């Protein structure tokens, strides 16, 4: 898979001077660069959630991801280390592109494997300013995309939802880095054209050959709060077993990934 990715990158770089990429190609490559690096990945993530007064809360978790195939369904396993009251809780998601995700929550004190209903993907992820969709990706098919501007460093895309009733934004603008194809900034606008939410990639590192956003900040410009998401100990292509994403490992977390 990595060799395929390399081959694609090689072909793309050779092809690049010959013709400009179409908008859909930029979007597809940005989607893969953001959410499908490697066949699987593991990282230790920290969310520092700050309100307008600067009071902070912290969430720390290990996240494991495995792709069914590039651009398709995925499995996510999220194990919480902090805060104390959710420690050892596990959140498992089987993500599909054509149907609602399957989700489970494991509550260790009760030994309870709870199936949870699919939820609005544009609601807060564990109390932070990031949405579920920001963490696991928004399907490119949900929006129409227009190349608004091409600068020396960025493709600037304007995205309009196909089903405006299902989301809180009227449109959003994304700056995609021309080198890495990582979205490095996104701004969400309401119907009045006012920007009320902003995402910024603050630090990018190349890990295992994959450019990776290791620090990102989401600002809620209406309430004045923000969240900084940091990824540490990022590793790709670890050969994470498929059955890691089943009930067995909810009850018995895969410690080799949690104690790194």
């Amino acid at each position, binding site marked *: 898979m990595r060799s395929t990715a390399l081959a694609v990158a090689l072909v793309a770089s050779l092809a690049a001077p010959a013709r400009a990429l179409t908008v859909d190609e930029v979007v597809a490559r940005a989607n893969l660069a953001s959410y499908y690096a490697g066949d699987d990945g593991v990282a230790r993530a920290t969310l520092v*959630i700050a*309100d307008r007064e600067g009071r902070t*809360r*912290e969430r720390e978790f290990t996240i494991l991801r495995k792709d069914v195939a590039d651009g398709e369904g995925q499995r996510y396993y999220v194990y919480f280390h*902090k*805060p*104390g*009251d959710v*420690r050892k809780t596990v959140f498992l998601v089987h993500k599909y592109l054509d*149907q*609602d995700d*399957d989700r489970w929550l494991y509550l260790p*004190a*009760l*030994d*309870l*494997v709870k*199936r*949870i*209903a*699919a*939820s*609005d993907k*544009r*609601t*807060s992820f*564990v*109390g932070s300013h990031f949405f579920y969709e920001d963490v696991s990706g928004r399907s490119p098919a949900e929006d129409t995309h227009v190349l608004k501007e091409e600068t020396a460093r960025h493709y600037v895309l304007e995205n309009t939802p196909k089903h405006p009733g299902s989301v809180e934004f009227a449109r959003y603008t994304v700056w995609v880095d021309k080198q890495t194809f990582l979205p490095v900034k996104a701004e969400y606008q309401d119907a009045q054209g006012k920007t009320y939410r902003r995402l910024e990639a603050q630090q990018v590192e190349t890990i295992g050959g994959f450019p990776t956003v290791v620090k990102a900040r989401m600002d809620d410009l209406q309430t004045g*709060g923000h969240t900084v998401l940091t990824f540490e100990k990022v590793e790709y292509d670890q050969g994470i077993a498929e*059955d890691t994403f089943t*009930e*067995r490992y909810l*009850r*018995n977390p895969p*410690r080799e990934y949690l*104690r790194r």
Partner: protein
Amino acid sequence: MRGRRLGLGILLLGAGALPAAAAEPPIHGFFEVAAGARMVDDDRAADRFLLEEARFQVDFLRDGELGTLAFRADLVHDGIDGESRVEVREGNLFLTPWPRVDLKVGRQVLTWGTGDLVFLNDLFPKDWQSFFLGRDDEYLKQPADAVRATWYGGAANLDLAWQPLFAPDRYLSGERLSFWGGAGSRGPRDGELPTEEPARGLGGGTLAGRLYRNLGGWEGALYGFRGRWGQPRGFDPATGRYTFPRLEAWGASLRGALGGGVANGEASWYRSLDDRDEKDPWVPNSQVRALAGFGREVWPEQNLGLQAYLERTLCTPDAGFTDQNRWGLTARYTGLFLRQTLTLSLFTVYSPSEDDAHLRPRASYQLSDELLVTLGANLFLGAHRDTFFGQLEDNTNAYARVRYSF
């Protein structure tokens, strides 16, 4: 107490066998104070207070080459009985002796089944007193001293849980909560319910099994159980004591995504082994129990869950107060507010056949990552004094808890 010693024994054994591996000493836990009191007068009890305790939990996990050792225990000071005690909630060793087999040996919490606070095939020990007194939901589950073996077969998985010794639920005994005692209300003033536990011996244990697999996104399971009722459902007229009749149960469940939510169905056939011909009026008859439920998000971060269940007594009901069909309806609302720091929930059970209800409103507010404040109540309503929730009417209570987690 015997169980506690067993748990500690396994802990020591495990610690000796495990070479030091983990770098950080992973000790966590919480400190909690809780108070709760009756909101109505109860002439069967002298004390208005139902809950008055301080609790210190330590939670310890250690990985070794052999397996993982888990230990979690509460040091509790109970102001109502004026005593301090240690409650070991987990003391077990987790092993994977073969690639497809997991083994958990020692004190552990066991849960399976699909119901939300309605248990059909989960016949593992429960603590109903904690549940009605306003302790955290965690305490509804009594830990069991057990061996749990799970075989992962690919196509299907098999779970077996063996409790060598019979352990009853913490049922309504008159220790703190008053209830219907057969001929009138019973409460702390009447002393605890006289019961006769089965002789302790290896033959008297409990065996529970579950065979489960995924069926295209739906989780299907078959269940079996052989043991005893966890509550003193039988009565021995010769001794005047309540007994724990033998019980066998066979069941099935299905759970999956449906209509933007989660649907579940479960059924179980309870065979009363001490009254196979259903003639003994002092031993509960066999029953069929069934449950159907559905839950979904109704508004962002607000969920609603509904369940309907039926307990149908087979053959003619036992003398007196048992209806042949006992219906129940439950509704649960959970809403998250203020960036998920405030949780409001209400769980309601209503039985149209018994004409009684139980309401559990609760509000929890996270003051900081460490500090959680919970206010809640247990309301019991009933047209009759001898129905399940009707008998608890005088125990209607409100409680408050403050927990500091580390």
